[in-house]
């Protein structure tokens, strides 16, 4: 899973597979980090309760 596992080889199949995996994980991680931090910021700023704007 990581370059320090002994069967990791710097070849094309590993690049493609792990490239895709870490790309997807990064998008999910960054997206959720943004959401959580912004949510914390918004609630601290007191942006309002549950009916300040309607549902989607």
């Amino acid at each position: 899973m990581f370059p320090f596992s002994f069967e990791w080889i710097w070849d094309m199949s590993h690049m493609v597979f792990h490239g895709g995996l870490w790309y997807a994980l990064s998008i999910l991680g960054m997206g959720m980090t943004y959401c959580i931090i912004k949510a914390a910021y918004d609630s601290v700023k007191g942006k309002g309760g549950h009916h300040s704007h309607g549902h989607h």
Partner: protein
Amino acid sequence: MDSVLIPKGVERCSIGKFALFIAVVGAVLLWGVVAMLLIYIKGLNQTNMNNAYGFALWIWADLAVIALGGGAFFTGLLRYIIGKDELKHIINYAVLIGFVCYSSALLILAIDVGQPLRAWFIFWHANVHSMLTEVAFCLTCYFGVLTIEYLPMVFENRQIDRVPFFHHLGHNMHAIMAIFAATGAFLSFFHQGSLGGVTGVMFGRPFGYRTGLLIWPWTFFLYTWSAAAVGPCFTIFITRITEAVTRKKLVKDSVVDLLAKIAGWMLLTYIIAKIIDTWYWAAVTAPAAGFTLMDFYSNNPGSAYGLWILIAEIGLCGVVPAIMLVTPSIRRRPAALFVAVTLAVIGACLNRWVMVLQVQAVPVLSFETWFTYFPSWQEIATTILPVAYGIILIALSYRYLPIFPQEQELNPIEGGK
């Protein structure tokens, strides 16, 4: 008693009735848990698997449930990426169904492996050439996506929404949901396909082996395609059952019709590709390994693998529902629609069955005979376990979360709340 948890503007049955329902399903769940504990304590000898049937009921259940859960990624792709906005009225349910399906798959996998405590090896010591590695990674990541897609629904619960942090978190996640949906579609393309690749790469098993494109056998693409086609059918199937149980209309006909139409065209194009693939396999690929089509089908009495299974999978449960779904006059009749989506769901289950079980039943060495298998009660109980869990989770979600945006409009309450 729990009215503060129930979404505003909708009615739910009494808590007593609900508790009784949960208790009944819970008893089935408990039976499954007992079987699961037996398997963990005593080992896989509790099943009827043997050295000819390394893959059996559980692996079939995994593949089937993931194909049926494909409605989540495909509806998400249609709504967020292609822009079919009307599907927003059913996507919550598609995501919930997907969440149930994928968590069930992971649960079954946790029971199925011989050494569950070593399951992390598939991540840590990954063999990137194996289709199963690809499946494990993508499945786990996609389950993460489904959790991300399900959480905002949980945050919309009346009481949870009152907490400012959860309210904002849900709102922010909704705002960037397209990114998560796109990632989910990307991951789904690969794991749905890799499940097809699991059998397709087995060049030692002429029944399952397919040639293909680069490293991907044709079954890779056929599985993704069929998941995209049958997943929405399963969503409609479960929606209709939920409407029957709750005795309410939950989604407008126009939304279901749109989804059914798209699923129908996906199914039709899929079945044409599947027929071409089957013909090529029977005419070219299998004979190169020394097998004719009929070598793969057994007419022995009591055999599950007569030619009927191929005709059922492609004909009755492939071509027939595809034509029904693309024909508006048939599709718009509720009974016909239900029959069509049921047949499509059965077709996908049959396809996964033959690619997991028939592939092992067929003898390859000329001096071997057909192998037979029937699951043990422990296998059956642990396969029904996730169904019971799914029913409970759906029941809880339906009761306490605003899953269906059109429910209020379709079921106005006298006097209002």
